[in-house]
């Protein structure tokens, strides 16, 4: 697959399908960045970059939890966008640029999620009417529609965000002269952010003994 437009379209369909796993069906964690980005990387012919991008975003959003009715930002769109940017060759060898440029796609993800949940209000009202009319089968059908609409909204949002961010990344890469060490460092930070946020909360619960044991093993692994 060498046509960039085709790659973006395929990635958008993939994003639409996999985003159903975010909330609408299953929650098998197929929509976690490390899984989704790895799969898309395979699809677009850049499996190694897919895994790396997935791991970076996984760690950045490690502490982003859907507790109660709170709907957190999802790392799915930025991870997939970064893979698309690498896949279409807009950031050759400059993965960190792709990671940073992909982050604004969070807004598209948020938009799709809100639109889907709002459209579900209308679906609920319709289902209520059908039930009052004694057509429970049609009320059930409304629920199935709602599941599919989750994918549709995310497909549209991803297509839109990719069509903006992929060319933007090309411009950013051209605008950076020489080695973008600064961006490399900046992109390495997300890796520490999620770990620090998660650890800060648990250190209070005397998790530091476990942390120290893990750190020792990690240091040994890193040195060997």
């Amino acid at each position, binding site marked *: 697959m060498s046509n960039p437009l085709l790659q973006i379209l395929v990635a958008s369909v993939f994003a639409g399908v996999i985003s159903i796993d975010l909330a609408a069906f299953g929650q098998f964690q197929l929509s976690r960045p490390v899984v989704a980005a790895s799969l898309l990387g395979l699809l677009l012919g850049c499996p190694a970059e897919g895994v790396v991008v997935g791991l970076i975003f996984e760690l950045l959003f490690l502490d982003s939890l859907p507790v109660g009715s709170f709907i957190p930002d999802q790392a799915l769109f930025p991870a997939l966008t970064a893979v698309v940017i690498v896949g279409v060759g807009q950031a050759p060898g400059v993965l960190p640029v792709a990671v940073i440029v992909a982050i604004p796609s969070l807004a598209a993800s948020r938009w799709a999620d809100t639109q889907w949940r709002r459209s579900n209000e209308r679906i609920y009202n319709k289902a209520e009417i059908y039930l009052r009319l004694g057509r429970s089968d049609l009320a059930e059908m409304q629920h199935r529609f709602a599941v599919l609409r989750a994918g549709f909204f995310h497909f549209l949002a991803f297509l839109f965000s990719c069509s903006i961010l992929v060319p933007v990344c090309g411009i950013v890469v051209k605008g950076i002269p020489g080695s973008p060490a600064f961006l490399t*460092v900046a992109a390495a930070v997300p890796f520490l952010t999620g770990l620090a946020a998660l650890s800060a909360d648990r250190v209070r619960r005397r998790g530091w003994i476990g942390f120290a044991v893990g750190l020792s093993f990690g240091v040994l692994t890193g040195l060997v």
Partner: protein
Amino acid sequence: MKMSIQDRFTIFLRSLSVQGSWNFPRMQGLGLFYVLAPWLRKVSGERFQEACRRHLGYFNTHPFFVPYVAGVIARLEQEGKGEESVRARNSMMGPLGALGDGLFWANVRPAAVLLAVAVSFRWPWAAAPVLLVAFNAIHLPEMWDGIRAGFRRSDNPFEAISTGRGKSISYFSGHLVMPACGFILGAAAFRSQTPVSVLTLFGLGVLLFRRKFKIPSVFGYLLAAALLLGAAGVRMRLPWFM
């Protein structure tokens, strides 16, 4: 009447999509109706429409505990205790929501993610399968067994919630998170060329988060971090970028 495997499978499969029509006013209301509809059709007979209307309303709990609630309702509806099933549903959703968030989102998921990241140091390709297996090996059996547990304990539903398995999962995954964090940090720091910088930055991050440092958004944080690091001139080479 006993619940057959087929009935149980139908409830299980439909429970997976309980949030499929999540909306702000009624949340999982339509989803719960969708889960229960085939069973109500089977046991309610002429009172089917009435039973459906009873269970189409406000409902919100942790999605992985919906099969448990459905099991309790299924039993009570079968026994003709319609109003009691509504009371049971309303009293269970809050506690189960809190329990599920603490168990799955705060413990099992971070533990599975960190396990996957730790594995990726050696076998990067294995990260995704490890995450999927570690999470779903707990999530799916909890959902499947929840239907039977709820159906059996409909007289005292809260008793069955606190199972030994749930406690062990919570304990084990809760205790796995911090060692895994330490392992990832240690391995990444000492594989990079500047372990001191990595550890210092991590320490700074922990301090900031402990002081309830609120970030306006991820963009703001990345920008601040990029400026900070750029200004300090730190050149880290973390393993994934080498």
